[in-house]
């Protein structure tokens, strides 16, 4: 494995008096597929949103290639182009076509010319199986299709890390499959991914690392085998027993 990309150190986040993230420490290496699991309200999504600076962490540091992005001297927008994000509610631009959703960031942010941006947008849409829908508007697509376009939009920026915030939680079981298939392909291609998910099969079979969170803390982290076969913490055991029972 190559070098470290992201390193989160002593990260805390509070909303008012409510401390939702407590002293989070973990790191993401190149080509890691890290699944963050845990029950709802354990702070998983907040952690992901902090990493993409959609939320302001209260304290701690986030190192991107060794540089603290919370220092103030860092260009947040430039950082975000390198750390893509896929949302639970897709957040495709509803005023733009599928193609333009994947083109606009390349043209306006990366300053690529239109022709090459379209070309790479089509190739990423092809990868997620949505190339035939370039003329459609987001409202004309199903949830699974929207999420695949959202993944293509994020990929089109050629990020170094891709964050997934419960990408399949708003989808019905059939659509979950089509989105997870795309994510599997990305994982096999060596994309560095950080995935907040309730899909335990994905966490166990696809990811290279698993982080279990409870009450805003990292309760346990390790390889999928360590976490799923031999969890150390009683809380992890308890959480996974429900999954293993099914």
């Amino acid at each position: 494995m190559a070098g470290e990309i992201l390193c989160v150190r002593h990260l805390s986040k509070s909303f008012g008096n409510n401390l939702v993230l407590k002293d989070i420490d973990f790191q993401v290496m190149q080509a890691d597929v890290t699944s963050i699991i845990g029950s709802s309200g354990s702070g998983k999504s907040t952690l992901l949103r902090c990493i993409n600076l959609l939320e302001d962490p209260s304290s701690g540091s986030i190192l991107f290639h060794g540089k603290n992005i919370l220092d103030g001297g860092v260009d947040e927008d430039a950082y975000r182009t390198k750390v893509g994000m896929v949302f639970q509610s897709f957040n495709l631009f509803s005023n733009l076509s599928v193609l333009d959703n994947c083109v606009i960031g390349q043209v306006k942010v990366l300053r690529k010319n239109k022709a090459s941006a379209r070309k790479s947008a089509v190739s990423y849409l092809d990868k997620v199986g949505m190339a035939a829908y370039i003329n459609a508007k987001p409202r004309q697509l199903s949830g699974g299709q929207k999420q695949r376009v959202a993944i293509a939009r994020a990929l089109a920026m050629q990020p170094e890390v891709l964050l997934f915030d419960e990408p399949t939680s708003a989808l019905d079981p059939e659509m979950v499959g089509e989105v997870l298939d795309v994510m599997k392909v990305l994982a096999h291609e060596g994309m560095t991914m950080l995935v907040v998910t309730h899909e335990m099969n994905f966490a166990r079979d696809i990811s290279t690392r698993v982080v279990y969170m409870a009450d805003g803390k990292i309760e346990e982290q390790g390889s999928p085998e360590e976490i799923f076969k031999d969890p150390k913490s009683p809380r992890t055991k308890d959480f996974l027993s429900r999954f293993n029972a099914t």
Partner: protein
Amino acid sequence: MTISEMSFFQRMGYIFQKYSLSLAKGAATTMVIALVCTALGCVIGFAVGIVQTLEPKKKAGPMSRALLKIVKVILTVYVEVFRGTPMMLQAAFIYYGASQLFGINMGMWSAAILIVSVNTGAYMAETVRGGILSVDPGQSEGARSIGMNHFQTMLYVILPQALRNIMPQIGNNLIINIKDTCVLSIIGTVELFFTFKSISGALYTYFEAATVTMIIYFVLTFSCSRILRVVEKRMDGPENFDLASNDTLAFTSGLQHYDAKTGRVL
């Protein structure tokens, strides 16, 4: 035949004939003022509405925070004053105030356009603010997540959606402006209502002149509202989309287009 001998419809016909030129001129003046002022009002409204939805940057110092706050207070005062007083009095206040206090004699056109657009701007500011707030916050998060800055997010994602959302309200404002330019007759603007007053004063046929003028007003407002509907439809784009494919063997069934009207597959 004198006016007093005519029937109701004959009198209306007479007014239409004899005063067609002044009525047309009045209607044109009304339309020009309404269109120009609604457009200018939109520009003012967007500017004010955008500033009012600005949040200070995370790293902003106390100076720029205070400056933004002061600007917002000034804009709020503008919006509240111009929404909260009758446009007729605003017209008198500005037109006569300018000449009395500053010795500026505003022309009829500049005074009319200034007053109506500033008034429309006050209403539009609130409309735009509402339009911006009505766009799902996820849209702006999606834009930020691919590295767009605040300006780009607004320009390419939020404002186009806000504009679409407030189109019905812009239409409303245009129609209100067509009718409300009549208050400008207080400063002597010769628009449609002023023409009505001249005609009825000359002929003493209030009922007929009012009917004729109302018909003209209605034709103006109704055409505008229909045209705006078409514009809205245009903004929504086509309801259908075609699947695109380079591979002529793939998805051939999906590439066919079903025409609901004729029931034919194209």
